[in-house]
């Protein structure tokens, strides 16, 4: 199987797995225990915290381990909303956030908060002037996805950071897709909070973290025995956290070598796929993740495309309604202005360090054939006729 769905998840790096294994059967202590087994676990936990902090230029005391990206985004937004509700009830996000952010915001609206969802242009970028004029005295948090998980568009976080810094609001970013793919520096960008997920960076599933800048006023979501300095209770997932730390270290160390190579492969994919007629690239041509290519193919549907590719040994994904639980096409593709019929025919390819030029050549051999096969079956050849 040629795996080109790394924005969905990644395999655990062999070195990460090796690093984790002792923490299941041998070094199984509870990091809260006083005995040496417990202290061994505690040390491992703190070592992982240092590794994570180093990658994003934070202090280890500002890293709070969680169960992953979804929890971290919930924690950041709800945590600030609850802690700061007397200061204001206004939240800003974008229309193309990940579902976990959007649904957190929608839930906050139900309990009396007001949310502004910023529009994006056809590439998926927000308008900085729009952000500036949406900020109010009672805005408590701005949450903006650093790199979009579907179309790969990378927001200008440094500029966003400068704007939000001048306001009363905290700035949170979901960096689940960008960490270890792009440089991330919480100080340079003036970030108050940042979410990371381990399984997107060749670490284990079920673990991640929220960076919370010292001094940010936030309530915990999970109350209990006071783990993670009282902000995230529950016995720590030591093996997972240790693996996450190692995955961060390796990912960042190898980034300067891996990402330029993958970007080259991505560009080869884009250049060649765009030779297929009635096809275009979704997302920004330059401001995009080095691993992401997202296309729309008119007159075909994405689920069929993904399943036919799967039968040829290529794993990819789509924003088609048929692939979703809601039967609605991707809100991101609709958000950048695609018509539903063109959102259905989308394909996302996301590369990882194990992908080779040979993989890309095979994809470029198979994909045009599969698209052509589906188009032969489609009633639409040049346009959508009476439906247009």
């Amino acid at each position, binding site marked *: 199987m040629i795996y080109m769905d790394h924005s969905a998840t990644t395999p655990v790096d062999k070195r990460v797995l090796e690093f984790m294994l002792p923490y299941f059967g041998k070094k199984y202590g509870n990091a809260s225990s006083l005995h040496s087994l417990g202290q061994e676990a505690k040390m491992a936990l703190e070592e992982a915290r240092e590794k994570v902090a180093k990658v994003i230029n934070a202090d280890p005391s500002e890293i709070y381990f969680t169960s992953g990206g979804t929890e971290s985004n919930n924690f950041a937004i709800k945590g600030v909303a609850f802690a700061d509700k007397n200061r204001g009830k206004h939240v800003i996000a974008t229309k193309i956030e990940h579902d976990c952010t959007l649904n957190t915001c929608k839930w906050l609206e139900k309990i009396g908060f007001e949310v502004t969802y910023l529009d994006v242009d056809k590439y998926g970028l927000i308008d900085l002037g729009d952000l500036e004029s949406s900020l109010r005295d009672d805005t408590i948090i701005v949450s903006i996805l650093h790199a979009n998980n579907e179309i790969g568009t990378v927001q200008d976080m440094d500029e966003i950071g400068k704007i939000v810094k001048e306001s009363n609001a905290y700035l949170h970013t979901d960096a689940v897709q960008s960490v270890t793919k792009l440089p991330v520096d919480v100080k340079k960008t003036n970030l108050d909070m940042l979410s990371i997920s381990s399984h997107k960076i060749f670490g284990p599933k079920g673990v991640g973290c929220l960076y919370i800048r010292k001094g940010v006023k936030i309530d915990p979501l999970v109350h209990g025995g006071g783990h993670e300095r009282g902000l995230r209770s529950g016995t720590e997932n030591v093996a997972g956290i240790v693996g996450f730390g190692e995955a961060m270290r390796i990912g960042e160390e190898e980034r300067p070598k891996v990402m330029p190579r993958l970007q080259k492969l991505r560009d080869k994919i884009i250049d060649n796929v765009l030779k297929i007629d009635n096809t275009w690239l979704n997302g920004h041509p330059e401001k995009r993740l080095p691993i992401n290519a997202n296309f729309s193919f008119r007159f075909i549907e994405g689920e069929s495309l993904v399943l036919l590719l799967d039968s040829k040994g290529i794993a990819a994904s789509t924003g*088609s309604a048929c692939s979703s639980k809601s039967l609605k096409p991707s809100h991101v593709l609709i958000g950048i202005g695609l018509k*539903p*019929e063109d959102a259905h025919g989308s394909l996302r390819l996301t590369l990882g360090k194990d992908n080779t030029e040979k993989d890309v050549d095979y994809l470029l051999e198979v994909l045009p054939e599969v698209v052509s096969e589906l188009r032969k*079956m489609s009633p639409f050849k040049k346009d959508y006729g009476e*439906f247009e």
Partner: protein
Amino acid sequence: MYTQKVVDHFMNPRNKGKLEDYDAVGKVGNPICGDVMYIYIKVNDNKIKNIGWETMGCAAAIATSSMITELAKGKTLEDAEKITKKDIADALDGLPPIKMHCSNLAADGLKKAIENYKNGVKK
């Protein structure tokens, strides 16, 4: 998610393509929803002599298009009209519940084609 039969009909669709010589066509679905099906029929002696299709849609949409051709071919128009969505799903050993309505359009497409045939409408 899909049964072996759905996968088989999706991977090896039967009687695909527009009929060169057809008497009527039934067009159902909408590109906005992601599924559109055109069912073409050639009628001889009140029976479905030949049937073909063009479909834009998910695997379930393609498999149901393929399956209805097997169910309808050779049947009288009256019998062919009686083929239901459930008949097609059953013949495929079932469809995921979420696909029963949005993608299972073939029975509607065939009914529409037969109706058009009876009314003398070719397009």
